[in-house]
């Protein structure tokens, strides 16, 4: 036991003293350096490398002597040089290759464990970067001193201008290379690296660990909100952040659209609102390009709407879950409400509010994409907040597991919500103290068709298409519930939900003249008419039957008179 303990202490002490031993060994040879400097003090001494680069072999003796390696012999680092056959002809490809090969010799004294302990960033750098890049070659000083006069960004670029990368926990390599030129031409050119990468500076370089490249990108995007507060606030309301939070790592963060170091000003990059969207939504591109808007843009009209013009840049919402897309249309078509009153009005006056009443319930595309297939979307909405109720909220209210929610809503599991099922959803939520309403709107069914905006002349102007029982555009009805990831849960509904007595209360805010008329009322109308006609017919009949009595009385036979 005692023997073992002694051995451990001996080994530990030996390990600690080893670098000192090496240093002493080299120091002992410091006198030999004079021999080397006899030649290398010559400023004109150079070597032509294979790539035609010229490598200076000049050493400033006094500066070297003043460096931390001043007492280390030349051969301590240049272990491959043997004075017996020096100078010999060595084939060196390039300066960078030479720097890298010489840097490997640093590890003779500066072991990996030691470097990592002093400054953990060495771990990531040592694999790629030559030591001399940061510390210099012969006049070795700590980087902070070596680069004391260097501007902050230049300091960072010392390493990051190289194609260095960072290893992720899942084994992926993330490039941490910064293209100086593209950064210099970016909108952020005047910023310091630490303005965004606030944890880093000339004196601080923490080592961080990320699961994946994507995890790093998402985290890095959070830095943007430090300055771009308004955009970050809007982004927090978007379907994209909901998707990210819901676990969809493909959903975009700031850098996915704007890039990282080569960020362009959206004022200059007029196509950012299309190009960045197309990275994921390229399936929308053909229909957009076929639209009035797309054609105008292709012709070079930079003011023609891009994706972000209608869907917004940051607070992008699910098209089925928002009525804000029309705000995008109205940004350009400012007079739309007034212009629609040319034909869309109720006499005796033409009011914009009447157009707006239609805009509230009908998406622009529903009329202006003339060949699109339309649907009536009834969104389950809280009466209190006026916002859609999510599937998560529903499962909590009902106290059920998420996977049985559909079964709960579509109780007969026929894949369609009937008028009774609609009433049951309303009534059950009412029992739980939740007041809801199904807010309705008409929209195109396929997103691709929504983009095929045609010319004004092709828009739907025929009132009968909507305002008539069993109207052409009221054949497809859907119940919409917001999913917690921001996307809609769309369940087909029977078209009878629009005209059922069961729907009057649950759907009290959605009314379309003619097409949401409750059928039962038509029957009551017919009955009332028959009743109204029956009263005079019955009364006249009795009067005819009783006319002899009146005749008798008038003649004084049996009457009061």
């Amino acid at each position, binding site marked *: 036991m005692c023997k073992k303990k002694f051995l451990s202490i001996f080994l530990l002490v030996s390990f600690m003293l080893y670098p000192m031993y090496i240093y002493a060994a080299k120091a002992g040879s410091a006198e030999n350096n004079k021999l080397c400097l006899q030649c290398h003090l010559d400023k004109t001494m150079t070597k032509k490398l294979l790539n035609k680069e010229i490598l200076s072999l000049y050493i400033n003796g006094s500066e070297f002597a003043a460096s931390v390696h001043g007492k280390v012999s030349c051969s301590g680092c240049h272990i491959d040089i043997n004075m017996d056959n020096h100078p010999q002809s060595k084939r060196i490809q390039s300066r960078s290759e030479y720097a890298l090969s010489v840097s490997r010799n640093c590890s003779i004294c500066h072991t990996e464990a030691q470097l990592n302990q002093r400054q953990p960033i060495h771990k990531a750098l040592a694999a790629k970067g030559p030591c001399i890049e940061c510390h210099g070659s012969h006049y070795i000083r700590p980087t902070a001193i070596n680069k004391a006069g260097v501007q902050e960004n230049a300091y960072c670029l010392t390493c990051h201008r190289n194609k260095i990368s960072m290893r992720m926990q899942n084994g992926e390599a993330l490039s941490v290379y910064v293209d100086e030129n593209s950064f210099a031409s970016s909108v952020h050119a005047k910023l310091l690296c630490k303005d965004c990468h606030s944890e880093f500076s000339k004196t601080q370089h923490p080592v961080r660990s990320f699961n994946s490249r994507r995890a790093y990108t998402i985290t890095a995007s959070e830095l943007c909100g430090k300055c771009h507060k308004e955009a970050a606030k809007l982004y927090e309301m978007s379907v994209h952040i909901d998707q990210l939070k819901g676990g969809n790592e493909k959903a975009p963060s700031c850098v996915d659209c704007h890039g990282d170091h080569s960020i362009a000003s959206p004022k200059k990059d007029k196509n950012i609102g299309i190009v960045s969207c197309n990275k994921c939504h390229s399936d929308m591109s053909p229909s957009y390009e076929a639209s009035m808007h797309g054609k105008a843009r292709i012709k070079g009209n930079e003011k023609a709407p891009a994706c972000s013009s209608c869907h917004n840049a940051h607070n992008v919402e699910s098209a089925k879950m928002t009525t804000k897309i029309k705000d995008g249309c109205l940004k350009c078509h400012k007079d739309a409400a007034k212009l629609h009153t040319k034909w869309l009005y*109720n*006499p*005796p006056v033409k*009011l914009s*509010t*009447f157009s*707006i*009443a239609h805009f*509230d319930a009908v998406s622009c595309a529903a009329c202006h994409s003339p060949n699109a297939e339309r649907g009536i979307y009834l969104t389950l909405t809280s009466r209190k907040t006026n916002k859609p109720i999510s599937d998560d909220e529903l499962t909590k209210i009902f106290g059920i597991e998420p996977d049985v929610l559909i079964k709960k809503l579509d109780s007969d599991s026929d894949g369609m919500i009937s008028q009774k099922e609609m009433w049951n959803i309303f009534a059950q939520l009412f029992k739980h103290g939740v007041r809801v*309403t199904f807010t309705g709107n008409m929209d195109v069914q396929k997103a691709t068709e929504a983009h095929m905006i045609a010319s004004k002349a092709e828009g739907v102007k025929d*009132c*009968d298409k909507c*305002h*008539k*029982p*069993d109207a052409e555009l009221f054949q497809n009805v859907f119940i919409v519930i917001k999913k917690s990831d921001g996307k809609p849960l769309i369940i087909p509904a029977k078209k009878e939900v629009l005209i059922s007595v069961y*729907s*009057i209360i649950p*759907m*009290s*805010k*959605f*009314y379309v*003249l*003619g097409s*949401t*008329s*409750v059928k039962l*009322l*038509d029957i*009551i*109308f017919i009955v*009332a*008419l028959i*009743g*109204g*006609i029956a*009263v*005079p017919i019955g*009364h*006249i009949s*009795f*009067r005819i*039957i*009783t006319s002899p*009595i*009146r005749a008798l*009385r*008038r003649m004084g036979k049996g*009457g*009061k008179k």
Partner: protein
Amino acid sequence: MTRIFLHPLPIRIWHWVNALAFIILILTGAQIKLGNAIHFFSFQTAVKIHSWLGWLLVFNYFIWVIYYFSTGNIKIYIPPLHRPVEFAKKALRQAKFYGWGIMVGDENPHHSTFENKFNPMQQVSYLMIMVALIPLQLITGMLLWDPKLFEPVVNLAGGLQIIDLIHVFLWIFFSAFIIVHFYLATLGHTPMAHITAMFTGYEELHDDHGHGHGESHEHGHEEHSESHAQDKSHSH
């Protein structure tokens, strides 16, 4: 034959504008609501006529309001509810007359005068119609006419579907009512007596009719009414 003045000019104008507008509104309303079963007009035409006449009715209603409230004659619509038993008995007698008395040649228990134009049943029903149902129909019509303009009121009522429900129920009621109303208008001493009176303002009284107005001389209605009628006729 004597004449009794019942309907002053503003009320005759109001009545006939009301009658025509109501009939056309009922028909255009039916066209709007039952567009796949009725084809009187196109949807657009029906809506435009409906809107114009709806607003005409709103202004027309004010003729009625201004006339009756400025003259104080609104009292003819107010049932004497401070004498409920007597009023109930009169109403029952009136109902009995229409149900049976009219068949056997009884005298109409109510004798219309300018100050007491309506029988108890008319009083209750016209009061309801004029102060509740027509205003409600006009207001719901206005809300449907531009739901965005009146959005706060629509929301207060619980939504446009509820507004429409009220409007449609009243449409059903008025459709049936107007048929019965027209029939009852033929129950004067001659079928045209009440209707003519609504044009001329004067109702002719005949001593020998079975169930018409003012058959009896016992109450002195005729003379009073006649003198009043003459007074009124001068004023017109």
